[in-house]
Every structure is written in C-alpha cells, then in structure tokens.
C-alpha cells in the first residue's frame, strides 16, 4: 500500500484524531512516520499487527533516540505479505524516569532490542520479561548514548 493509503486507513482507527494526537508526516523520510503518545502506543501496535490490510508482523529495527529535550524510541515495521514499511515514533519529555509499554508480546524480537535501549538510554519498558542491562556491566553508572553523557576516561571528544 502506498503511504497515502496507509495514512487514510490508520487515521480511521482513531475515534478522535485531534485528542489522541496521531501525527503523520512524510517529509525528511522515505517512509510514513507516525508519532503517537506513549499511552496509545501498545494499542496502536497491536492494531497495526493484527489488521489484515496492514499486517505489520516484522519489526526489524527498534532504536532509541535522544532528541535533545525528549527521549524517544523509533520502531521500523514491515509487512511480510504486503511488503510495505512504516515508522512509528514515540517520545517523552521525562528524562528522569522515561517509561513506555513493551511490545514484546506483539513481536518477540523486541526483548533484546528493548534491553539495549534500556542499557544505553535508560528508558524502561512495562511488562518486559527481563529488563536489565545487555552490553554494559550491571554496575555501570549512567546511560552512554544520551547526549548529556560525560565520561572523561573513556570518551574522546573532538
């Protein structure tokens, strides 16, 4: 499906587009980007997977991003039957205790990816089976991929 058709379809799922704040944008990217509020994330993801016209059953990239003020997660989804790709973004301004819902129950590959995001950004995920650090040791202090991370010993800044 083309990006416009996807946008129309997904727009119809939301009862009141204004209050739920689902933003569609296509500039600056070759795929359709959907920005969603953290509270609606899990429901939107479930619908994206289960609806047979979209059927996004392949989560191929889950990245954490530090947007400067906010912390966010970017999901790249693909459908194995229709072969279209969509990008879902979710952000939160809370840098002390950022929490999102885990999508492990929808796509099992999210288990390791969400652990990586927790390790590097400190974003916690609800209902994750095993949320602990993945690459760094258990007693590491701080979250390295955040933009305000300072480490005088290990980082060489140009």
């Amino acid at each position: 499906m083309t990006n416009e058709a996807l946008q129309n379809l997904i727009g119809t799922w939301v009862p009141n587009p204004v209050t739920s704040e689902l933003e569609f944008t296509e500039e600056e990217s070759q795929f359709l980007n959907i920005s969603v509020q953290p509270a609606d994330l899990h429901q939107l993801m479930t619908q994206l997977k289960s609806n047979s016209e979209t059927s996004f059953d392949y989560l191929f990239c889950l990245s954490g991003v530090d947007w400067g003020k906010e912390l966010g997660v970017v999901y790249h989804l693909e459908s194995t039957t229709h072969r279209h790709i969509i990008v879902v973004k979710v952000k939160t301004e809370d840098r002390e205790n950022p929490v999102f819902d885990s999508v492990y129950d929808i796509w099992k590959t999210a288990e390791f990816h969400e652990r990586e995001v927790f390790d590097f950004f400190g974003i916690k995920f609800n209902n994750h089976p095993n949320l602990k650090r993945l690459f760094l040791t258990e007693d590491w202090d701080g979250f390295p991929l955040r933009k305000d991370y300072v480490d005088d010993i290990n980082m060489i800044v140009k």
Partner: protein
Amino acid sequence: METSTVNNNFKSDEYFINMGPQHPATHGVLRLLLTIDGETIKKVEPDLGYIHRSIEKMCERDSYQQIVHLTDRMDYLSSNINNEAVCLAVENALQIEVPDRVKVIRTIIGELTRIASHNLWWGVMGMDVGALTTYFYAFRDREMINDIFEETCGARLTMNYNIPGGLMFDIHPNFIKRVKEFITHFKTKLPEYDTLLTNNVIFQKRMRGVGILSKEDAISYGASGPVGRGSGYSCDVRKTNPYSALDKVTFNEALRTEGDSFARYEVRIQEMWESISIVEQLIDNIPEGDYKVETNAVIKLPKGEFYQKVETARGEFGVYIISTGTKNPYRLKFRSPGFSNLSLLNHIAVGGKIGDLVASMATLDLVIPDIDR
C-alpha cells in the same frame, strides 16, 4: 556478580553451566548461561558485551568516510557488504547516481564476500560437529578469494574498498582473470563439500529435526537471512529491495520449509551456488567508465532520516541515519542480523541436548562483533 543474580532464578536441583567467553564453539566472545537437567537444556541466556566498542557513539562524532571504516569491524566476514550499506545510504541521501561500472563491481565483490563467508561457516560447522578436516578444505578455497581481495582492494579481511561515491581504486588488471579461475576451481570443489559432510549419515542425524523454528516464530523473532529462509520466510533483501546491480541479474532465492538445522545448512550451500551464478553473469560484462563520482571532502547529509537495507551473509543489515544537516550524523543505528538471530537461541535450544545447542548455534552463523557492535 552474575552467579548471584542468576542463581536466584534457578531451582536448587538444576545444574548451571557456563559456556564461557573463551570457548571453541561460540564463534567469538559470547557467554552462554545454560541451565541443564542431565543432558537436556532448560534455559539458555546469552551474556553479551564482551566486544562492545560503542561504535554507534563513535559514529556521532566521526565523518561519513570514517564511519565506513568502522562498519568493517562489525561483521568482519561480510565487510564489503557492510561498507556498501553505508555508502548506499549516503549516496541515496545526497541523490548521487554512481556509474554502472561501480554498481557491477560492488555486486561482484559483495557476492565473492558472501562466498568467502559461507566457506568459513561451512568449515567451522564441520568442526563443531566433530569432522575436523572440513576446516582446512574450506580455508583452502577461502585463501583464493582473500588473494583476489588483497590484490584489488588492498586488504584480506577489512577491505574498505567502497567509499561514498564509488570505489577507492579501480580494479586490478588481473581481477577478471583471477575471478574466473576461482569460479572454475570452486565449482569442482563445492560438490566435494556435499560428499564429505552433507551426505554423511552421522551428520544428517545430528542436524535433521534439531533446532526447529517455525515460520511465524522466525518472523516474530526478527530472523533474517538464511535463518529465516530455512523456515520458509522469504526475506532476501536482494529480491525485495534490490540495490547496486542486483536488479540486472537472475538468481533463485534459496528457500526451505522444514525450519530445522539441516534446512538452514542447505540454504547456505545453495546460496553459494547462486552467488557463483551471479558472479558468472556479471564478470564478463563490466561496463567501462569512471570508478567513482567526486563528492565534497566534507560530506553533509541533508536534514532527515534515511534507512538502507542490504543482504549480508548473515541476513538483513540496516543502517538508520538521523541527520540534522551537519557533517556528523545525529544518530546512527545499525540493525545487525546477528542480534535478532541470537534472540531465538533460547527458543530453539530448550528441550534439546547440549550437542544440539552446538549444532543449532553453528547454523545460526553468529559473528559476535556484529551483535555487540
């Protein structure tokens, strides 16, 4: 440290074993915490990070040409294809059209890299299940490819031959002749691989019915490459999103439906045949032209987000660049195939024996620097 946190989850009559970071079967520095009951495995938990070099953080302060060099060290067995991914992302973002000569040469070198990687995988696969001679036969053929690379690209393992805009040098005058010699030699050797290992009764009994992965699970766990194709999930990026010269060649996608270790093994053997056929189609018809397009010395990508997928020997490798218009990316994320492939190890190993774990892990073809980045 780990023993105290891990032992809290295990019952006292379960036996806990560490396949430690230094181990002949784990293909790199991977630590597996196994809970076993007799010979049967009840839980596998990988412990990563032994070769984590924070490449993604380094990419935020490096220029795009320097980032190409960092991608070699991730999946060092398909280093050319990794380089190609970043170069293609940058070229698509800047909307540069590279000459046809560059595309064809990139594809030939990528397919040769795939053959070399699968060769090494086959040698190590035999060694893991006990046939110790396969290692030497595989390396004998891999040396020929390494010699070709050394002559043209300058290095044997981490090539850095692709740069944004084209290739670093033109191909060596001997390149075409040597590739043809290699293809002729290798076509007589690949049936030998079948005689030695594939058709061996002991090997088949070790691999058939072991480590079964269904198609739904493969898609849910994000499996790609030969792991996904062994379960029937048709995920070859060279077919779905062709890049470089791959839309000009015809080849079959290797698919099997059984989902066991033997299916994944057969997929890779067939991929080697397909790669040989791709190289044969292209090697005689390399178009003339420039070997690169000049770019600025300082590359600045326009503001936006760019994603590029390629098919490495392990599966689907993705580069996700978020750029704010400066000379470094704002955020660069590498989607590595091994990371998702490793997450299904617990799923396929539980209930089997330790020997099955070793055989299944060998068919997953993990390269740990690719996972740890």
